[in-house]
Every structure is written in structure tokens, then in C-alpha cells.
């Protein structure tokens, strides 16, 4: 399960429409959408948001992966809904609120998913540079990311090598097992350390931070479609701020709630009495 979720946030090299947007545009998109998701507490507007964001998943060409991830987290979403529906107090319809929570979770998952699916670690670091973060930080982020596959591969080799020397990892009680980890952990750390040391030497030898300022062969540049989208997003953000300050009441259709008889609690009670009846017969 955890690998699926990791995979979900893993950048996929593709040339989809969404990939072509500047990471800064996508960053603002994430911020604005997150604001709205937190702003709304009612089911209808959140469902609308969800319906609005889902096509972007298709545009970013990661529908399959998204679906798989959604199925994986479905139990969690159901748990959120049920717990809210059964335990929430002081709301007119706990089930509606629970469903709203579920959708909130899904929207956030989608929004962050789209971001990490379509922003490469390199773009991410370039974005940091544009935001005037120190270059070393940006470099460290993208480099660490690039070394993940190497480190995973290396760990597998280390496990294999020690097993071949007769190491039995899953033998004995917990202390014995922890002790068995030492022949794995030491080479893993030593290797990672050696790797970073050698890399440091190599980049130092090629003039790392030789000048206070540096130039870039490539850097991010906003395109017309970015400007357009940014404009739209800033507009939405302004609306959001306005709403936060003024607290306009939402139109009544947006405040729609589940009728009392469809409340999870009442459904559960009805089901329980039906079951009871069945057995009493």
C-alpha cells in the first residue's frame, strides 16, 4: 500500500498539457485550491470542486494511477466518512458533514497528486531558485531525489550480499532481529556517506559556488498560458479572500443536506431492527 502511495506522488515524465505549465503556476493552483477546500465545509461546493478538478487528472494523463491510488485509500476515506457520520455532534446532518470531509480529502489528494505528477524535481528546485531560496538547498533537493532509485537498488544488493554470507534477518526475538540489522545498516550508511562525500569532491572540483552569483543554462520562463492561468488563479484567490473577510452566506442550494432518514445513524438503526426482525421470525 505504501509503495502505491509513494508511486502516486512520483513524478512521471510526460508531455501532457498540464506538464507544460510552469511549476509556479501549478504551485499557485495548489495554494488556491487548498484554500477553497478548507473554506468550504458543505458537501455541495466540495463535490463541485471535486468534479472540477478531476478532469485535470485526465489532462495530466495519470488517470489510471490516480484510480489505483484512490482504490488503495478508499478504506481510509470510508473510515473518515463513517467516523464523522457517527461521532460528529452539533451539526444538523453528521453524514453530510462526513461526506464533505471525505471529498475534502479526495480533492487535496488530487491537487497535490497533479502537482507532483507533473512537476519534475528539477523544476521544483528551479522554482525554489526563482523564489530566491539558496542554490545549495535547491540543488540538494533535486539531487537527493535523483539518488533515490540508486539507493533503493543499492539497498537490495546489500541485503542480497549479506544473505549470501548466511545472515538471517528474520530469525530470533526482537533484539536478535535488531542486531541482525547491523550488517545491513552499516554498509547502507557507509555507502551513502561515501557517495555524498565523493559527490561533494566532484562538484567542488568543478567549481561549486565559485562565484557569488551563478548563471543557468535553463531557467523557468512563464508562457502566455501561464500568465492567463495565473490571472485566473489570482482572481479566484481574491474571491477567496473576499469571502473570508465578508463571510457572504452561500446560496441555499449549496447548503443542501441529506434528509434525516438517510443519515448513517438512522440507516444503521433501521438495518439493525430489520436484522433483529429477521432473526426473531
Amino acid at each position, binding site marked *: 500500500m505504501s509503495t502505491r502511495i509513494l508511486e502516486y506522488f512520483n513524478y512521471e515524465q510526460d508531455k501532457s498539457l498540464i506538464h507544460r505549465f510552469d511549476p509556479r503556476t501549478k504551485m499557485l493552483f495548489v495554494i488556491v485550491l487548498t484554500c477553497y477546500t478548507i473554506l468550504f465545509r458543505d458537501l455541495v461546493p466540495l463535490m463541485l470542486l471535486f468534479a472540477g478538478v478531476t478532469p485535470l487528472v485526465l489532462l495530466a494523463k495519470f488517470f489510471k494511477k490516480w484510480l489505483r491510488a484512490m482504490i488503495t485509500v478508499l478504506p481510509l476515506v470510508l473510515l473518515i466518512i463513517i467516523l464523522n457520520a457517527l461521532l460528529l455532534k452539533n451539526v444538523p446532518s453528521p453524514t453530510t458533514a462526513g461526506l464533505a470531509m471525505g471529498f475534502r480529502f479526495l480533492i487535496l489528494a488530487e491537487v497535490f497528486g497533479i502537482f507532483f505528477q507533473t512537476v*519534475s524535481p528539477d523544476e521544483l528546485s528551479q522554482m525554489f531558485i526563482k523564489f530566491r531560496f539558496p542554490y545549495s538547498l535547491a540543488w540538494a533537493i533535486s539531487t537527493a531525489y535523483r539518488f533515490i532509485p540508486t539507493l533503493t537498488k543499492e539497498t537490495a544488493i546489500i541485503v542480497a550480499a549479506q544473505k549470501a554470507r548466511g545472515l538471517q534477518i528474520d530469525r530470533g526475538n526482537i533484539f536478535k532481529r535488531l542486531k541482525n540489522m547491523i550488517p545491513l545498516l552499516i554498509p547502507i550508511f557507509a555507502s551513502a556517506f561515501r557517495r555524498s562525500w565523493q559527490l561533494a569532491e566532484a562538484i*567542488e572540483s568543478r567549481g561549486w559556488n565559485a562565484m557569488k552569483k*551563478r548563471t*543557468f543554462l535553463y531557467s523557468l520562463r512563464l508562457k502566455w498560458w501561464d500568465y492567463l492561468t495565473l490571472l485566473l488563479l489570482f482572481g479566484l484567490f481574491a474571491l477567496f479572500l473576499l469571502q473570508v473577510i465578508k463571510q457572504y452566506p452561500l446560496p441555499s442550494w449549496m447548503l443542501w443536506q441529506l434528509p434525516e432518514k438517510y443519515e448513517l445513524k438512522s440507516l444503521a438503526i433501521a438495518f439493525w431492527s430489520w436484522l433483529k426482525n429477521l432473526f426473531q421470525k
Partner: protein
Amino acid sequence: MTYTPVIELKNVTFKYKNCDKFALENVNFQVAQGDFVLLVGYSGSGKSTLLKTLNGLIPHFYSGLFGGDVKLFGESIAEKKTAQLAKTIGFVFQNPENQLSALTVEREIAFPLENFAIPRQEIRRRVNEIIALLDLEKIQDKSPFAISGGEQQLTAIGSALALDPPILVFDETTSHLSPQSATKIIKKIAELNREQGKTVILSEHRLDRNLQYVTKIAYIESGQLKAFGPPREVLHNKNYPLELYPRITSLYEQLKKVTDNFAILPEKHRKQLLAVPEPLTIDDFLLFIKGGRESV
């Protein structure tokens, strides 16, 4: 005009922290413009340590006791940072996987230029030049993690060349490669030496395929420079171990021994053979055999 060596080491001594033995002991030598120096020595003899003093990685990167002076083009590098020396000295390391970090091969080559704040158009031009020079067109947009070891080392060489440094240092650059790619890389290095006049220092285990390009051998043993000079001179130095002879030379020596210094041959013939310089490479050996056959 006085002669200034490209590289000059004066009494260079280094002892790693927590180590009781000296890794380098009073090393002195001078390398001239255009030299191709092969650094030879057993594993653990201090080859890497010596190379790392050339651009200040030692002592700046390693704690320990450092003594002596390293001069590049007559200037001491003691006060200089390794990063600043990148314009003078290009360094390529042993492990292809642990010296590359950029998104693509092209950007790996651009990296040193970016560090020195070279304008973008200029970076573009230089990167294209190097890609053409090292035939990297096919992989220029690939990740340095998705190419073969030989290609990775070529990328590292490209990156080291970016700032056009007059000196190139190779620390066992081919030892992780298959023999075919290793030979290719050595040929490339020799080309840089011959055609661009780069001064090259290279440490290697394989002698046979390299000696044809080499102008000087430096033999190091337990941190001491035991012999330095033109290949034949160094091989005849009593400090130089027979085990580190190039295979060809060692075959020749054996042949000389079983024929009792060619005494089994007629005198005229023998003189002729002894006059041929001792073979270091395959071509030398052919010359020797030819000499043996066509002596008149």
C-alpha cells in the same frame, strides 16, 4: 625566459587524521606543458592522495597533517579554494555513479560554467562544442543515471573540460569500466593531450594499453615517489618493481633471459637486437621482431 613547470610539488607530505602512517612523504616532482604522466603504484600506495593535492581537495577536504607546497603554473595553490581551481585543473574521478548529479548530460557539462556565472549564450556554445568533441549527441538529453559506465565517464570528462582547464587529472577513471570502454576513454584522453595540448596526469592499473601515449611515469610506493621520468628510464630504475612491468616488457625481459641476452644468436644479430629500444607497447614489440628478422 625562465621555465615554469605546469605542476610543481615541493616536499608534499600528508598524514590522514587517525592514521599513523604518512600517506605522502616528501613528494617532489615537476610536470611540463603537454606531458602525459602515468601514475603507477600498488593499491593503497597513495596515488589518489597525491592526485587530490593537485587541486587542494587535500588538505581542504580531509583533515590531517599537510606539509609542502603545490604550485600550478608557478603559483602556490595553498591559499586557493578547490572550486576556484576548476578553471586551471579538471578532475575526473573513479566512480562514474558518484560524480554526476544533473538532470541531463548536457546540464552536467553546463554545471561548471554555471558556477562561474558564464552568460547563457556562452554556456550554450561551449556545451555544444564539448558534446561534439566527445560525440555525446545521442545522450545529451538523457539522465546521467540512465547511460552506460563508459558514457558516464565521458560525461564527467566533458564536465571537467567545460572551463577549458589546461591540466586534466584522472583518478583511475577507467577502473570501473569494461576493457573496451576503458580503451575508448584512454584514446579520448590521449587525443585531448595531443590535439588540445592538455597536460594529463592519470592513475591506472592497466599499463599495456596506455603506455603508447605516456611521456612520463611516476612510480609511488608507500607514499614516496620512488621513480619519475620517461617510461624506459623509470622501468630501469632499481626501485621499480618487476611486477608492475607492462606485460609486453615483461615478456621481452623473459625472452632476453631464456636466450641469455640473445647470446644464442649470431653476434651481429645480437647487437642489432640489443640496439632496438626495449618494447613497451605492442607496436614496439613488432618493431623488435622486425629488427630481429630484417637485420642486415
